[in-house]
């Protein structure tokens, strides 16, 4: 069997593993095996490329194998060690940033391939040139966009946007596309313009993500994820490489669907997210002047919980920041010992990524059946004695249902305000990620318990044990 045939079989196995792996990843019981399966397929495809890939020179008919092996193995070794270490070390709370970072690496890789391909082969055909430039553009946008998303999640970069920016963005994207079509038609004399495409795309990536609110970063990361998929698929077009094509397109389409699903979970359109309407909207909810909040001390809170029949915990990002998931689980166990029924109400976008909160609570060994989804928990809330909101804000804000002028109007929420009592654990009266006031805190049934979530929970546990 010729080398090229062995390579095709490797690619077939790789593509198959991606499809099956992705399918398995979408079911809880098989997800882990699915990930490993896809990783195995990737290894086969990469090893196959290094061992069996051949280029046939169309003029001389000369066959050349993969060279520069020392460099390739060196690069793979560096990438593997760095990638493995950073992935193992990252805290679960910082995971969305990490995914964004890795996504950016893939985008940059796609962009670099285009740059090198232009430099070494100077292709003349329109089709190939067009694909190379398009791959460069999408890869670069994905790279710089992911870096900005990373910075925003780390809270190092602030939201910045204005009405005119949308116009600039749209002009820029059409200018880049026009330039690409122009250079693609030309011969190698216009090759140096590739740097203009590169630079303009880099700027576009930054401007694209800049106005989008921090709370929308998961959607952006998912979108950029599918961009990188498309960039990889374009690479597949370039080299007639089936595994890049199937892998890239699979991620491209799956990523787009995932993005739309996330937008649906927030009841907003993708366009609404991209145009940054969230942060540009100056409305910060109803004025809360004249309303007062009431505080509760730890002892009273402990008594209130201990004499309840049903307690529901609504965890938010504040819980993750305080690293309080383990303490929270302990608190839940102590209450259960006292005969209180404890459940968790997890909002689809709690945390910084959909499902992020489930990952964090699972890390703390919280039994899976205790985690209830929003639709399941809302009808039960009027019969719930105490809802404890730990570091969550926007996902329990009643303004989403009552105030049409609110930026989060229409987003499905956990209706904490329907419960008999509400305890809100918060560090201060600061606003949530969406930057709007929350009427829930001023509700007559609400008591505030200020302080670090972890410290407060620990005090509650001590109180409960001594009672």
């Amino acid at each position, binding site marked *: 069997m010729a080398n090229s045939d062995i390579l095709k079989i490797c690619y077939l196995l790789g593509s198959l593993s991606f499809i099956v792996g992705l399918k398995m990843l979408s079911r809880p019981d098989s*997800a882990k095996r699915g990930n490993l399966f896809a990783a195995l397929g990737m290894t086969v495809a990469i090893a196959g490329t290094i061992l069996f890939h051949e280029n046939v020179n169309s003029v001389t008919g000369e066959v050349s194998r993969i060279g520069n092996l020392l460099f390739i193995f060196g690069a793979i070794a560096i*990438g593997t060690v760095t990638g493995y270490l950073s992935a193992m070390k990252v805290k679960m709370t910082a995971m*969305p940033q990490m995914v964004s970072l890795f996504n950016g690496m893939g985008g940059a890789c796609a962009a670099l391939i285009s740059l090198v391909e232009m430099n070494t082969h100077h292709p003349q055909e329109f089709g190939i040139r067009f694909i190379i430039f398009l791959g460069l553009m999408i890869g670069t946008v994905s790279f710089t966009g992911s870096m900005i998303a990373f910075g925003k999640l780390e809270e190092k970069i602030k939201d910045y946007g204005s009405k005119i920016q949308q116009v600039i963005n749209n002009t820029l994207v059409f200018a880049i596309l026009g330039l690409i079509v122009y250079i693609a038609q030309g011969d190698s004399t216009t090759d140096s313009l590739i740097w203009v495409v590169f630079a303009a795309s880099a700027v576009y990536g930054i401007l694209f993500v800049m106005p989008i609110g921090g709370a929308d970063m998961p959607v952006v990361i998912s979108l950029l994820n599918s961009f990188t998929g498309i960039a990889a*698929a374009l690479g597949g077009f370039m080299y007639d*490489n089936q595994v890049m094509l199937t892998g*890239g397109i699979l991620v491209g*389409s799956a990523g787009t669907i995932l993005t739309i699903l996330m937008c649906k979970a927030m009841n907003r359109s993708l366009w609404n997210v991209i145009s940054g309407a969230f942060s540009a909207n100056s409305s910060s909810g109803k004025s809360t002047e004249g309303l007062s909040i009431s505080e509760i001390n730890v002892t009273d809170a402990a008594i209130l919980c201990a004499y309840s029949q049903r307690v529901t915990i609504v965890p938010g990002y504040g819980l993750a920041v305080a690293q309080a998931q383990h303490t929270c689980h302990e608190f839940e166990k102590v209450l259960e010992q006292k005969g209180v029924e404890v459940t968790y109400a997890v909002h689809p976008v709690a945390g910084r*990524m959909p499902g992020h909160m489930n*990952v964090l609570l699972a890390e703390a060994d919280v039994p899976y059946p205790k985690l209830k989804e929003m639709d399941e928990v809302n009808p039960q809330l009027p019969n719930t004695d105490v809802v404890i909101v730990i570091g969550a804000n926007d996902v329990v804000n009643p303004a989403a249902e009552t105030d049409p002028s609110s930026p989060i109007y229409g987003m499905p929420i956990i209706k904490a305000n329907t419960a008999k009592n509400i305890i809100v654990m918060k560090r201060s009266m600061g606003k949530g990620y969406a930057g709007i006031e929350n009427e829930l805190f001023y509700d007559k049934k609400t008591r505030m318990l200020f302080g670090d979530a972890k410290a407060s929970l620990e005090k509650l546990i001590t109180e409960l044990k001594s009672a």
Partner: protein
Amino acid sequence: MRNFSTFIAQFKIRLNLLSMIMLSEFQGFLTSLDIWDICFILLLAIFLGIEVISNVPAILHTPLMSGANAIHGVVIIGSIIVMGHTAPDNYFALTLGFLAVVLGTLNVVGGFVVTNRMLQMFKKKK
């Protein structure tokens, strides 16, 4: 209109052909790839992606995104190809290619390891 119906007819034939070939003689099919076949792979892969993703429980959105993130690291193959066929004295291309392979590997390895870590937490402990 006639053009359109011939197009549809051709499309059906193509689709039948493609599935036939894929089932029986995939080797012959693989060696005769042309731009049209690529377009059909493209089409099928798009629908496959949509099909595979729909009806995912919200708790798996993050691992799924992360897993998909690792899969598009397949772009590393392109960087290996471009690097492998670069002249050993073209330092510009070698440097960029080297960087591309490093970044691609980061994407693949980091992506799969992070996904694995996340999923490990869902494991039922007894």
